[in-house]
């Protein structure tokens, strides 16, 4: 049982959800999701946001029966101890994969834009202890990082106004020129940027009045969607579709044209500021993974954190180059899609049946 002292207010769910979703994807999703829906892909973001809202609802349906319950308890209840723990372990691996994807993609951006000769292993030596320092303490520290990870980079949203000077609205006209199928296909790609919500299954017991926090989870998801759509629209009116095919990180291009009397090439500042959005991602996933192992096997939290960070370190160092990062991204996207939209609903159904059976027996 988690004491009330260690719990956080329901409002914090808003920050936890949106900081777990937003991250490194903001820089590049615009040129990925337009694969099918073209310049209408921003609608796909709204669709994806709505679908994720439904998933959040499903998660709350799963979790609300037990204030203490998290995914470990649900798995054990639904599948029994052995199978349940095994599935939890798979989920842990998935969280680790997500953390690796985020971290590795960010390092990739740094390598391409700032330091081509960056030694990944040396750079991570600086970063991994920071993550350990954050997750080895109480959950509140993690929440604090998530909170600041939403509040502080909020100013970056203002940078979207600058490129509008060069905007051409005809780039996104006529609207709704793509079929529903194309938009749906694009939204499957867009979902990758919303996948952080799965951490909710782990931190749920740490929320005060957890049952009442559902609306904040939806608000958090809404905030993410709004920001994504704003970023996406700004990108699409700035670039035309042919240009978009060539650039990997369109947002960096948007920043590049920002000029102040004392500063040019804003993307250097932007990438540095983006670190405060990346950190909550990695920290939250790593904390969740640590917590799961701790809950399942009862090992000491700090030791688990150290071991998992060791795995993260090795995984990030060996996944070399742009191809490696792409493979990581794609596989994480596919696994996440299956996890959120197939596994979670199925889990809800099995859990429902299981509970009915239990009730009848007793």
């Amino acid at each position, binding site marked *: 049982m988690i004491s009330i002292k260690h719990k*956080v*207010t329901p*409002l914090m769910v808003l920050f936890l959800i949106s900081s777990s979703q937003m991250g490194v994807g903001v820089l590049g999703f615009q040129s990925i999701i337009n694969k099918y829906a073209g310049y209408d892909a921003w609608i796909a973001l709204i669709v994806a946001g709505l679908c994720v809202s439904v998933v959040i609802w499903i998660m709350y349906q799963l979790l609300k029966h037990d204030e203490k319950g998290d995914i470990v308890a649900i798995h054990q209840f639904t599948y029994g101890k052995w199978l349940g723990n095994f599935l939890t372990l798979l989920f842990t691996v998935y969280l680790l994969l997500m953390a690796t994807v985020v971290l590795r993609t960010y390092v990739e951006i*740094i390598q391409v834009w*700032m*330091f081509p000769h960056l030694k990944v292993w040396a*750079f991570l030596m*600086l*970063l991994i202890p*920071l993550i350990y*320092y*954050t997750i080895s*303490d109480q959950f*509140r*520290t993690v*929440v*604090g*990082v998530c*909170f*600041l990870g939403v509040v502080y980079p909020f100013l970056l949203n203002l940078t979207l106004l600058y490129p509008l000077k060069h905007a051409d609205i005809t780039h996104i006209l006529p609207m709704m020129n793509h079929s529903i199928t194309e938009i749906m296909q694009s939204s499957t790609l867009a979902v990758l940027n919303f996948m952080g919500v799965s951490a909710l299954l782990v931190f749920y017991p740490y929320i005060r009045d957890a049952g009442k926090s559902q609306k904040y989870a939806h608000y958090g998801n809404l905030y993410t969607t709004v920001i994504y759509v704003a970023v996406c629209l700004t990108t699409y009116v700035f670039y035309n579709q042919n240009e978009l095919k060539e650039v990997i990180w369109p947002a960096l291009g948007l920043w590049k044209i920002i*000029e*102040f*009397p*004392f*500063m*040019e*090439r804003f993307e*250097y*500042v932007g*990438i*540095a*500021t983006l*670190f*405060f959005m990346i*950190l909550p991602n990695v920290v939250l996933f790593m904390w969740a993974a640590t917590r799961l192992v701790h809950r399942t096997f009862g090992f000491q939290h700090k030791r688990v954190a150290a071991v998992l960070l060791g795995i993260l370190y090795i995984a990030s160092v060996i996944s070399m180059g742009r191809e490696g990062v792409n493979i990581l991204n794609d596989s994480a996207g596919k696994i996440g899609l299956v996890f959120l939209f197939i596994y979670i609903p199925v889990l809800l159904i099995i859990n429902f049946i299981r509970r009915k059976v239990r009730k009848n027996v007793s």
Partner: protein
Amino acid sequence: MNKKAPQKKAQRDFDKLLKTLKNKDGFIHYHHEHNQDTMHLGYLKTAVDPEKLEKYILPRVQEYIYNDLNELDQFIPFTKTELTNDASEIPEKLVKGFTFIYMGNASPSYLLIPLPLDEKRNVSIPEIEFSVVGPKEAFVEDIDTNLNLIRKRLAIPELNIKKLKVGTITKTEVAVLSIDGIADEENVNTAVQRIKNVDIDQVIDSSFIQQTIADNQNSPFPQLLDTERPDRVAAVLAEGKIVISVDGSPHALIAPTTLIEFFSAFEDYFLNWMTASAFRLIRLVAVFFSILITPLYVAVMTHHFEIIPQAMLITLVHSRMQVPFPPLLEALILEFTIELLREAGARLPTKIGQTIGIVGGIVIGTAAVEAGMTSNVLLIVVALAALGSFTTPVYKMSNTIRLIRFPLLIVAGVYGMIGLAIAIAYIMVHLLRLRSLGRPFFAPIFPFRLQDFKDALIRLPFNMQNKRPFQVRPSKVKRPIDKEQNK
């Protein structure tokens, strides 16, 4: 015969005591005959106030209108006198400034009169937390004077003072102050418990307590606010905070505190809220500026000179043209010089200290630039950063700010902006983890408390501050204290 035995033993004890005391430096011993007995009076010259002794004690003793010590006790105009039979207690009491009287067979016990010599400074004006307007009193080294200064401002029965003794050798008196019904019981208990647990042999100043009861002793950040202003102490007590006063220290400690409180000068409350808020914001900007500007310069000049617009680049390149060092080394040398100046200025007497400022600031600065050791621009940057760190009202915090600049500088030199971001994240996480008396140090930013922001980054007018800060978990949230009390 039997009746005489205890008296004989007492006499033996006394003779033994006298023998040991005679070897002590400054022990003074009078004796004269009185009613067939010998009357003894002894004290330590350095510990006793001679004026009190001559004025109040000696005349009374010589009047001979008493038969035993109990009667004598009635004539002596001091409370807190003690009667004891135990001779072994005497040496300890003498050191504390007591005078003993022994009357021999008539009454085989000792009368102890406290006549301690009080050497203390007068209450003077605050020097570290000086304010142009407002009260001009500051604490002194004597705890009773300090408590009196606080009591004068908070003359209410609810003012609760718990006294403890800390330090195995010094046995320093430590007082924990709080206002009943406003301060949180748990805070008071935590403070008292932690002070009780302090296990060091000497407590010379409140800083000793500040460091030993801190939540995280391996943090560069002070976690208890120290102040020399009784008015500030009275104000925070009324807010529901706890104050720790230590004998021998002119600084009282305030807890629980927050990071932002370290950047609020008490003068902020004497000015109108708009000016006060503006000054506070200037101070906060100055701190950020002070921490970040030199590392930013190093990061940009080393790794990202693309950031600088062309017009500015010319100025920068021109000023750096003759400098043989990389920016990191250049900045480290200059920062080190500034620290050298500050340290030299702080260690020297005030009058010479000013000279050091001129020598260092003007002579070395100009010469360094002319010799091509550093660039003009960096000199400006470093000097401004130093200036920024001096705007922090609490001296200990301004030290911290100057200290954390150095790791930032090095990381910025190695990994540029990204390194800087990571280093800031380290500080951020550290602040998130930090507690002051068990309460979050980074509040009201996180945990986010909108309510407490009215006296954080800015200070809103008093009539809007109708609630006590949530940070301290006050028992009574609403201000002012309920009216029944004022009846």
